[in-house]
């Protein structure tokens, strides 16, 4: 096929892993016959039978049983139907998924992937547009990955399933139908590597998941101001590829972090903290943050005012340049 969407990429990644490794299992709510509410798992149960199955409506149950299956050698890939619905599983994720390897002195590893469609921008009802990355990225023992493009969605999901560490895989749902040229399979840099999506010299836009395309768009718009903005896609939030960020800031001297999650203790805080320490003499302006506001995600008709947009980011660039 020429060109593929993120949903197609994720579906193909699951299919290819199910094909290559008999230990891979895929389960969650409505992921079998229905193929998932976003069709990410469409056709998989038809092809792989009961290795792809529906569960009762209980997220702690889904993650908790996945822990037991992983202990037995399977590689479960579970789906939380929406971001906020990963919260009932929070205790299992933080108290067991994140800690089992350490608790057992390395004797038990949990090769499981928790897929979570996240973020807003699709005009959804409450609890369907959350950005929970801080909760998971702050938790020692978890690895948090989020693709910003269909190619990364494919390659990072495959790497995640093959990882012996438990991985929280955050899927930017509003980019699900975004198409990209090329054909699958593709291989992109591995987990833990940030990528410069657009080289530039004026300032660095740091983004991930849903804000990658937004920042590329902003960089484009910035050219009209005569700005040459660099765009760095984090791809994995924990581990954070701080080296790539430092290198970029040593070049541009300015950084703006863009995400949908609130600013208070959002990824922008950690990045600002690390950059101000590791690139102290290079920063000509403080690391600025363009994020969702620190309020609960608003109703659909207000989300465009809540979400970071091109103008808000350009304003931040201007503020940064004013230093």
């Amino acid at each position, binding site marked *: 096929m020429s060109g593929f969407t993120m949903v197609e990429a994720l579906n193909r990644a699951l299919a290819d892993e199910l094909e290559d490794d008999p230990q891979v299992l895929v389960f969650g*709510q409505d992921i079998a016959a229905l*193929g998932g509410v976003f069709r990410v798992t469409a056709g998989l149960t038809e092809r792989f039978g009961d290795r792809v199955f529906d569960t*009762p*409506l209980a997220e702690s149950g889904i993650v908790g049983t996945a822990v037991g299956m992983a202990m037995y050698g399977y590689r479960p890939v579970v789906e939380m139907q929406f971001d906020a619905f990963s919260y009932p599983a929070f205790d299992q994720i933080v108290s067991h998924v994140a800690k089992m390897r350490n608790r057992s002195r390395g004797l038990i590893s949990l090769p499981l992937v928790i897929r979570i469609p996240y973020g807003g921008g699709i005009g959804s*009802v*409450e609890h369907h547009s959350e950005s929970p990355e801080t909760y998971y990225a702050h938790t020692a023992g978890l690895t948090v990955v989020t693709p910003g493009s269909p190619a990364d969605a494919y390659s990072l999901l495959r790497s995640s399933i093959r990882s012996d560490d438990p991985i929280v895989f955050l899927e930017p749902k509003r980019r699900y139908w975004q198409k990209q040229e090329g054909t699958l399979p593709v291989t992109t840099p591995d987990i833990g590597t940030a990528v410069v999506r657009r080289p530039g010299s004026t300032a660095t836009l740091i983004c991930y998941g849903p804000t990658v395309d937004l920042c590329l768009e902003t960089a484009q718009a910035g050219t009209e101001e005569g700005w040459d903005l660099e765009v760095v896609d984090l791809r994995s939030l924990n581990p954070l590829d701080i080296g790539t960020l430092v290198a970029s800031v040593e070049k541009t001297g300015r950084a703006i972090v863009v995400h949908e999650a609130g600013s208070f203790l959002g990824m922008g805080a950690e990045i600002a903290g690390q950059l101000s320490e590791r690139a102290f003499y290079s920063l000509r302006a403080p690391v600025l943050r363009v994020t969702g*506001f620190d309020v609960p995600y608003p*109703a659909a008709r207000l989300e465009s005012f809540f979400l970071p947009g091109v103008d808000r980011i350009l304003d931040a660039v201007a503020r940064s340049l004013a230093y």
Partner: protein
Amino acid sequence: MPDDSTVTDPAQMIRCLPDPAAPDAPLSPHSLSDDQLLDLYRRMVEIRRLDALAMSLQRQGQLGVWASCLGQEAAQVASAHALAPQDWVFPSYRETAVGVVRGIPFVDLLSQYKGIWLGDYDPHKYRFAMNSIPIATHALHATGLAMAARRAGDDLVAVAYMGDGATSEGDAHEAMNFAAVYGAPVVFFIQNNQWAISVPLHRQTASPTLAARAGALGFRGIRVDGNDAAAVHTVTADALAHARGGSGPVLIEAVTYRIESHTTADDQARYRTEAEVAPWRERDPISRLDRYLSGGGLLTDDVRDGAHQHADSLAAATRDEILARSPGDPTEMFDHVYADERALLEEQRQMLVAEQRAFEESWEDS
């Protein structure tokens, strides 16, 4: 008062109105007056019309999504009808019929789905809590409010509406167990509509009934034909009396069926056939009550037409209202987060205000 055999034996189910699908099923007496029965009929007709309006509004892009209660009108209307004004309802997202019976203008229930606000009615005024999307979580709020009311010595019952799928969540268990331990006046009204989106009941539980949950936690559970308005009303009235009387919680399993897809965002064709749905159309709760009332000569063509005319005009008015409703000032998103003012939020509000001003100016310039 139904005996407990109704709890564990799926064949056992309280019925009051003849069921075409189960002609020889025993029928229990109901406690409704003719007026009450006609009232239920009118409400169900009204709800069905409003639900159809919501479906079409969604198709026209006026609503983001809609969860239809088509086929569940008897379960919702009759149970809500049995409530006292002081009782509190804790709904999920599908209990629009209950909300309407509680007196909430339908437009205020639609508002949320148009994306105006996360909820758009006064929960205290109607004693109808903000509807709850995280499955089963609100059952605990119902138990807590019931514990509080009992402590205050107030005569009220909290009714938690849940689906069959909701019974799988840990919160459902904790809510029922707390209610039982504290003898709280809660009625857990479970609309067992056989499906949780695409997951059928038998993948949700290995038990033949959901009502059995209650007995295992030490309180009363009962099964009722959810498409039988008279039976639902009778059983709910019994349950409310039981809880009100200080005898603790009651679980009602109302056996019904979700005729539409889960929501307008769902496509039932992917997981079930029309052949499965068909028999349930036969059991339509409105036709069922219609037959019963017509048979008794109670429901005349005039009454029927009146009900439909009333529903149509209400729908027309509601349509105009929802189309006219628009979101307020976006900075309202900062107004209700905290009771007091927060500096960080004020900074963000000012940023949004400035953006708005700049935007307007750029408009005026052009």
